[in-house]
């Protein structure tokens, strides 16, 4: 079949409904949010159309700087942890039998789709005093009495790594499946150990994929909003938590919108970078 440009109005038919829906319910809300970010906040949670930069000016505060710095640091730490475990794992997975691969993929998808609320609940139970890990340590004689491990930075970090790990594997999976197996075979024939072949052949060959994955996971982690709330202290709150808090509990929509716009800009810049890294030819 020749693909032709649409000629008659009727040829555009299939496009009407999707285009309309996406425009009305994504583009317009997005534009509304940007507009609200310039609005003037009134007492009592309302806001007035205006064009003020106050909401953006608040970014310059020390508090905001600290939250932003912490969010970025946390997301980077999670991304690095996930990629460092994810690359050897996905590499081994892509070389496993098909049946085993499917089993893992189903498990990873199930965990990935699990609600953030449930992941938070599961980890807070695991880190609790009554039902938690420390009971196991006591039983093993490593500790004298059980204790709660939340709220703490370690708990937030662990749960976010847990949440982002399946995502990392699924992002890496296609690239590693397609990786030419003869590359490592050649290295092995020349006498490299499997571990050495992995670090000297696989990792360098995937340099750009790894960079793109780091960025993707970073963005994913940046979106986490419940885990810092459920497992951390207020100083562990991230930008996503702060946006929700301002919008819902402080009823300061203009400020929440301004922060969201800022987050979009950060994300878009990173997506651009990830696409650029992904497009670069893989150096063999």
């Amino acid at each position: 079949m020749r693909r032709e440009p649409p000629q008659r109005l009727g040829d555009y038919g299939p496009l009407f409904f999707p285009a309309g829906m996406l425009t009305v319910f994504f583009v317009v809300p997005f534009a509304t949010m940007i507009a609200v970010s310039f609005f003037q906040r009134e007492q009592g949670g309302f806001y007035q159309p205006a064009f003020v930069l106050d909401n953006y000016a608040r970014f310059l505060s020390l508090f905001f700087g600290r939250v932003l710095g912490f969010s970025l640091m946390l997301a980077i730490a999670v991304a690095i942890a996930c990629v460092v475990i994810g690359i050897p794992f996905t590499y081994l997975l892509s070389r496993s039998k098909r049946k085993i691969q499917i089993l893992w993929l189903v498990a990873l998808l199930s965990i990935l789709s699990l609600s953030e609320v449930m992941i938070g609940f599961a980890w807070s139970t695991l880190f609790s005093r009554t039902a938690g890990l420390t009971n196991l340590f006591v039983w093993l004689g490593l500790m004298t009495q059980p204790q709660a491990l939340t709220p703490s930075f370690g708990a937030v970090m662990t749960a976010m790594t847990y949440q982002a790990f399946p995502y990392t594997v699924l992002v890496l999976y296609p690239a590693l499946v397609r990786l030419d197996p003869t590359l490592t075979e050649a290295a092995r024939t020349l006498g490299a150990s499997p571990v050495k072949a992995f670090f000297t052949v696989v990792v360098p060959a995937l340099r750009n994929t790894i960079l793109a994955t780091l960025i993707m996971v970073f963005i994913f982690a940046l979106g986490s909003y419940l885990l810092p709330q459920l497992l951390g202290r207020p100083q562990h709150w991230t930008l996503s938590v702060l946006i929700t808090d301002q919008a819902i509990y402080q009823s300061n929509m203009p400020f929440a919108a301004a922060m969201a716009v800022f987050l979009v800009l950060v994300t878009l810049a990173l997506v651009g970078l990830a696409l650029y890294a992904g497009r670069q030819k893989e150096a063999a």
Partner: protein
Amino acid sequence: MTALRRLFFFVVGLFLALPLIVVAGVSINEKQTLAFPPQGFSLSWYGEIFTNSEWRNALIASVTLAALSAALALLVALPLAWFLWRRVAPWANIFRLLGVAPFTLPPVITALGLLTFWATTGFYGQPWTAVISHAIFFVTLPLVTLSLGFTAIDRSLVEAAATMGADDRTIFRTVVMPLILPYVVSGYAFAFVLSLNEYIVAYMTVGFTMETLPIKIFNALRYGYTPTMASVTVLFLAIAAVVFGLVARFGDLPKLLGAMAEDK
């Protein structure tokens, strides 16, 4: 090496399974306690999901929302993917981009955009706004699976049908639809499961008028933990595992995932 590999898989598996094992254990406690190992054995916390009217209503709300929003997402994605495959119209790719955007950005952004939109238009809090919001938020999933499905169709089949005088509508119904059906089903399945579990968009759009299960759990967490939260978590995990297991059973999961990330 095999031993080392097994050990590595085991450690990762343990990390992934540990919280779920504890949750599953907690869910069978006899009394209302989050003890682990569980004290006594009882499935009453699973019964609670269906007998306690609050939990049951939340379950019904979640399932209804997921079923409707996934269907709507499909209705948006199918004609769009068909058009992009059928016609040469590079400018129309902007809509593909719009379809993928809500899923790529941090979810709080889409949630806040929809919140301001529904508040401005005066529909804030209506249950149907959550259906539209979720459909837009998850349209990426059917869009990506369907785009993949269309590229797998041999264009000469469609050409043959066209030569024999079939119009677009007939071609779509008799040739394309049967070939694309597995991708339609998996696209729906992905959107359904994710909508079932979604929290922030649902919370920001209808959080004060309607309780889905994730919202219900989050609200309940403030007043203390009950084993019902654990049983709901196990139930949702089981639903996801069954759905994705079926997708794997009747489709090519590695291929589906291989191309999904490629599209991003």
